[in-house]
């Protein structure tokens, strides 16, 4: 594997794991949504993310080229091998916590995939072009909820503000990119991450201001998702997600 291929592989894992864990978290709302329409919306978005994970992990497996497929990557890796950003694995909590987490992640996804549409790698470009249309809708959905929760009742504002305070420490980790990413940047395979971060900051600031929510200042930033230092929550997610494959190895359906 060339160093560029290795870097692409690592990027696909990072993005694919983000999408898979995000999709899994949202799927936990299935049948538990605050009301029917929102239940459908959350699981709809969940399926978009899981589909995206399938594409990205499939491409990772293709680059790796050792006879394994996306299912191996999804169901047979342990916590420390997972590369998803810490924010995606945080618990659903109340609806405000889910939506604030979603808004922070959707904003990243939207701007990242928008830029990735210009990738010099045809496969990544294709995946991004499909994803960005979905992400545009996801972001619209979670943005509208920020306004309604933040600028709604005293209770909804309090819950959204608490969620923002709790989740903010995980936002720095979103922009950590795997080894070799600079090479992907210079080869125009992946977008300049500093540019994506700038768009993310501008959008988050703008929306939070309209939503009457305060962004925490000088906060400590927890990192470590790329080196396997996940929060305790990921283990529980994988235990549930990988159960069938672990209990009945090689089963197919």
């Amino acid at each position, binding site marked *: 594997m060339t160093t560029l291929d290795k870097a692409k592989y690592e990027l696909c894992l990072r993005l694919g794991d983000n999408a898979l864990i995000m999709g899994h978290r949202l799927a936990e709302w299935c049948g538990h949504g605050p*009301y*029917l329409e929102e239940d459908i*919306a959350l699981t709809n978005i969940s399926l978009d993310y899981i589909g995206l994970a399938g594409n990205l992990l499939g491409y990772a497996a293709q680059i790796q080229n050792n006879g394994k497929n996306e299912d191996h990557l999804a169901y047979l890796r342990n916590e420390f091998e997972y590369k998803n950003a810490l924010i995606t694995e945080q618990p659903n909590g109340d609806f405000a916590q889910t939506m604030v987490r979603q808004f922070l992640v959707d904003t990243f996804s939207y701007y990242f995939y928008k830029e990735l549409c210009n990738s010099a790698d045809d496969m990544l470009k294709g995946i991004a072009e499909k994803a960005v249309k979905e992400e545009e809708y996801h972001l619209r959905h979670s943005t509208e909820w920020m306004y309604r929760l933040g600028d709604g009742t005293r209770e909804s504002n309090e819950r959204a503000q608490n969620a923002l305070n709790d989740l903010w420490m995980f936002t720095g980790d979103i922009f950590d990119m795997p080894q070799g990413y600079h090479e992907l940047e210079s080869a125009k395979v992946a977008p300049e991450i500093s540019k994506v971060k700038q768009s993310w900051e501008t959008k988050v600031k703008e929306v939070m201001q309209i939503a009457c929510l305060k962004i925490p200042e000088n906060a400590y930033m927890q990192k470590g998702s790329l080196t396997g230092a996940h929060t305790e929550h990921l283990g529980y997610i994988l235990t549930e997600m990988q159960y069938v494959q672990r209990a009945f190895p090689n089963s197919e359906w």
Partner: protein
Amino acid sequence: MENKDISQGPLWEVFIQGNPGIPHKHAGSLHAADAEMALQAARDTYTRRNEGTSIWVIPSAQITASSPEDNGAFFEPANNKPYRHPTFYKVPDGVKYL
């Protein structure tokens, strides 16, 4: 009929246009807090399988409907006037959605 359960928001009627140029058709109803959220919920609930090119949402409370008692006065006078029905024309081949 107004929906009294405010926990899910008021009721909205959803109309979907299946193809450009044809009328919006009633698809169903849903609950949402306001018009923008109703539009998004309609997208998730009724257009997931590529059904539409355009969506309208209308507060159910804004619809005035005829009641069954009106049926006699409203519809029966038309029954004995067959010349009002466009059944004496041949529809040209190739006309869709008529």
